[in-house]
């Protein structure tokens, strides 16, 4: 991959980067605001996921529409068939004994609940405590996201680093980036200062789609909010649809996390983790020309 393929607008590190970096230099990559938000958000998402799974355990059935309870058809269900744990999605059903529906807790007691103890917060069943964790960290998630987005708008982070240019939207460009990713050919030198289009798409969809959807579908489940802002629930076609989307988006975030961690490991975990803690990042050296032309 050629290094200076894109236009010359530079990323966050531009202030500290030397002229025409060729790789090997240590630059400032992530701003303080980005680093703080990243870790606050990571903590909030972990707590929200695990406490959310506890809340899900209180009624592990999902519906479409405005209402839905035990007499109504659930499109997803985790439960038991006799002494076997099961997950059912539509008409597809698998045995999940030991993992979902029926599992053994930390004291060796067999429990008949949907999500096992090691994935929930608290680890012992308590809808009340799960809700206390969840609803407190929902504020952390929402307020930190709002603050980060506003600050990133002011300091130009969104425009410079996340905004996807017309050139980058071209299918050929996206396809080339996908091929580079599939071959694990990550940008080097100056190109590594900037996010490529797949990174931009991933981060933009987290910032502007998945996280806001989590917040809005969460609010759509609140009977208080539904009174003063009925549009929030109506937008999704009902409270139970909002609950289903809340659940699906949570797994979308888990999917992002898995890819995110895989990319950190592949791109050099020490350098990547240092950059999101201290802000310092060593630009990957450019490949030998023979390799680059391949």
């Amino acid at each position, binding site marked *: 991959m050629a290094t200076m393929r894109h236009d010359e607008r530079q990323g966050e590190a531009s202030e500290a980067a030397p002229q025409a970096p060729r790789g090997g230099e240590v630059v400032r990559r992530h701003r303080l605001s980005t680093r703080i938000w990243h870790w606050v958000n990571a903590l909030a998402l972990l707590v929200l996921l695990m406490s959310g799974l506890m809340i899900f355990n209180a009624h592990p059935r999902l519906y479409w529409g405005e209402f839905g309870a035990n007499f*109504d058809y659930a499109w997803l269900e985790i439960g038991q068939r006799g002494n076997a744990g099961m997950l059912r999605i539509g008409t597809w059903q698998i045995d999940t004994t030991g993992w979902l529906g029926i599992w053994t807790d930390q004291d060796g007691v067999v429990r008949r609940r949907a999500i096992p103890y090691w994935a929930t917060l608290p680890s012992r069943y308590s809808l009340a405590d799960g809700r206390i964790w969840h609803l407190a960290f929902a504020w952390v998630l929402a307020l930190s996201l709002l603050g980060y987005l506003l600050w990133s708008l002011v300091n130009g982070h969104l425009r410079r680093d996340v905004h996807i240019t017309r050139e980058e939207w071209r299918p050929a460009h996206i396809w080339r980036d996908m091929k580079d990713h599939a071959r694990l050919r990550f940008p080097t030198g100056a190109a590594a200062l900037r996010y490529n289009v797949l990174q931009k798409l991933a981060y933009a969809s987290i910032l502007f789609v998945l996280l806001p959807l989590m917040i809005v579908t969460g609010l759509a489940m609140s009977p208080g*909010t*539904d009174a003063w802002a009925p549009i929030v629930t109506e937008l999704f076609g009902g409270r139970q649809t909002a609950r289903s989307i809340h659940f699906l988006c949570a797994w979308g975030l888990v999917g992002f996390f898995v890819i995110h961690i895989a990319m950190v490991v592949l791109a050099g975990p020490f350098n990547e983790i240092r950059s999101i803690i201290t802000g310092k990042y060593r630009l990957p050296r450019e490949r030998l020309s023979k390799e680059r032309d391949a």
Partner: protein
Amino acid sequence: MSKLILSRRSLIRTGALGGGLLLSGCDKLYQQPGFRSVLESGENLHRATQRALGGQALAREFRVSDMSPNFRANGSKEGAGDEYRRHLAQGFAQWALRVDGMVGRPLNLPLTALQSLPQRKQITRHDCVEGWSAIGQWQGPQLSHVLDLARVSPAAKYLIFHCADIYGGKPYYESIDMVDAFHPQTILAWQMNGRPLPQEHGAPLRLRVERQLGYKHAKFVTRIEARDTLAGVYGGKGGYWEDNGGYAWYAGI
């Protein structure tokens, strides 16, 4: 290859160990009263924001065609005690709702009196704290009418709803504040889906407080008591689940 498998296995082991430590750490942290009360104070934030943004907004009402074909009953499915069973057998003909506490005129209202007050009929969605919802039609007098009849004191801050059901060995009760008490959709429902309230849904009378979760909608209501504090009533937190299960008193979210 065996080296790779080994390292993968140790990776999984490390991950499981780390996760376990994290979990027990979170559980331990939560047992600290200071930490827990910080998390619980989220409830005040919810109430303040919802009230500020919502004011006296009405809960959404639905059409007959939107109703759940089968409305799930939850919690106590029957009232407790000989007195309740006698009233049930008599079709609640001798039954009366007691309204007392900080009121100018304590009342004993028979079912017929509640039925002859101006009625409100509403089709609303019942949202359980567990996550499920059901849509049903409710009818009864607005609570505000009953409170006006009883000349509730301006100094009263809460209404306690004493109930005839025993859940987990303890009497059920609930409470709301005056904002919800005077909300137009807060009714004392004696009718559900066009028929007298069935026992499993709290016959003869249940509270509907539409902007909050299901556990606030006390069933089998026998007495409404106006008070200026929740302290001194049962566990002091304003409701059965608040006292015994750690649920939030404000259940608008």
